[in-house]
């Protein structure tokens, strides 16, 4: 076999992907709410894999304390828009894709406008209410949702396929609100969650493999442990009413 020095050669050689799946990745439209710790590696891998259109929505600005894990950014980015700096970094990694930056907070008033037309939504945000808002949007529109989160040294990943699988609310029906303030977190944990989340998006976009549905994958980085926790769709779930 001749060596081919093309951008996607190494993944096109994989039987699970190949050139046809690569075309599907190029046609995919993926929106990410946030460009922080988990989304940094996640977005890097999506851009590198050739996801055709990436929309990054993040109202926040880069701070020094972000840099232990938010590997999209450098000290030169401090004080600047995360969405715009992520757009610049990802476009330089892969100028063959379209990367859009929106420096806004997603809320009930703008969610349809910001996420409309995107096949896959990478859920995120800094509050439980925000997560449930996105979960509800995906239920209403049928967009697939990938959840990847981390704090301390642990995290969770799950995919929600509306009408076909348990949603975020089925999995976590009565979560407390967070404590507020600075979240203790290690870059390794956000890296694991982001990498697994990128894998979910690529599988969905390419139409290959098995997404993490009807349950969630939990990991503890300090322990080196992974657990899949099964979740049944709940008929009384206010998030999806399956």
């Amino acid at each position, binding site marked *: 076999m001749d060596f081919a020095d093309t951008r996607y050669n190494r993944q096109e050689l994989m039987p699970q992907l190949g050139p046809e799946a690569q075309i599907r990745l190029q046609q995919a439209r993926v929106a990410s709410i946030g460009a922080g710790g988990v989304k940094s590696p996640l977005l890097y891998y999506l851009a590198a894999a050739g996801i055709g259109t990436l929309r990054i929505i993040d109202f926040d600005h880069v701070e020094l304390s972000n840099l232990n894990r938010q590997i999209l950014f450098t000290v030169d980015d401090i004080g600047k828009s995360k969405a715009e700096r992520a757009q610049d970094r990802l476009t330089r990694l892969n100028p063959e894709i379209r990367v859009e930056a929106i420096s806004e907070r997603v809320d009930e008033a703008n969610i349809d406008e910001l996420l409309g037309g995107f096949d896959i939504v990478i859920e995120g945000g800094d509050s439980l209410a925000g997560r449930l808002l996105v979960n509800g949007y995906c239920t209403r529109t049928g967009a697939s949702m990938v959840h990847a989160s981390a704090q301390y040294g*642990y995290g969770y990943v799950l995919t929600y396929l509306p009408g076909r699988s348990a949603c975020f609310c089925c999995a976590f029906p009565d979560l407390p609100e967070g404590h507020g303030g600075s979240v203790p977190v290690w870059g390794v944990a956000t890296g694991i969650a982001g990498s697994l989340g990128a894998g979910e998006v690529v599988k969905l976009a390419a139409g290959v493999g098995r997404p993490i549905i009807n349950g969630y994958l939990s990991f503890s980085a300090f322990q080196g442990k992974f657990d899949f926790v099964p979740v049944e769709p709940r008929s009384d779930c206010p998030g999806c009413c399956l």
Partner: protein
Amino acid sequence: MPLTVGLRGYPEAVLAADAITLDLPGTSTASAIIQGLAAKSARLRHALLREDGTPRQSSKVLVDGTPIAHASVLPSSGTVTVLAALPCDG
């Protein structure tokens, strides 16, 4: 009776421990395990229990890696683990 309980997720993070020993009655339910663990810290109580003191549905007890219902009595053997969430994108 002392019972070693493995910790995953938020409990492991807060206590910085792989496992903890709880002193429980001979016959205990999954709920009793969660409530015993919650008594170790105010932050765990907030994460694991509702305001009325009952376990949140999001607080899981796994026996040999399989979740059991909160009302279930723990089997006489098997590895018991509590996994609880406070999902947050750090």
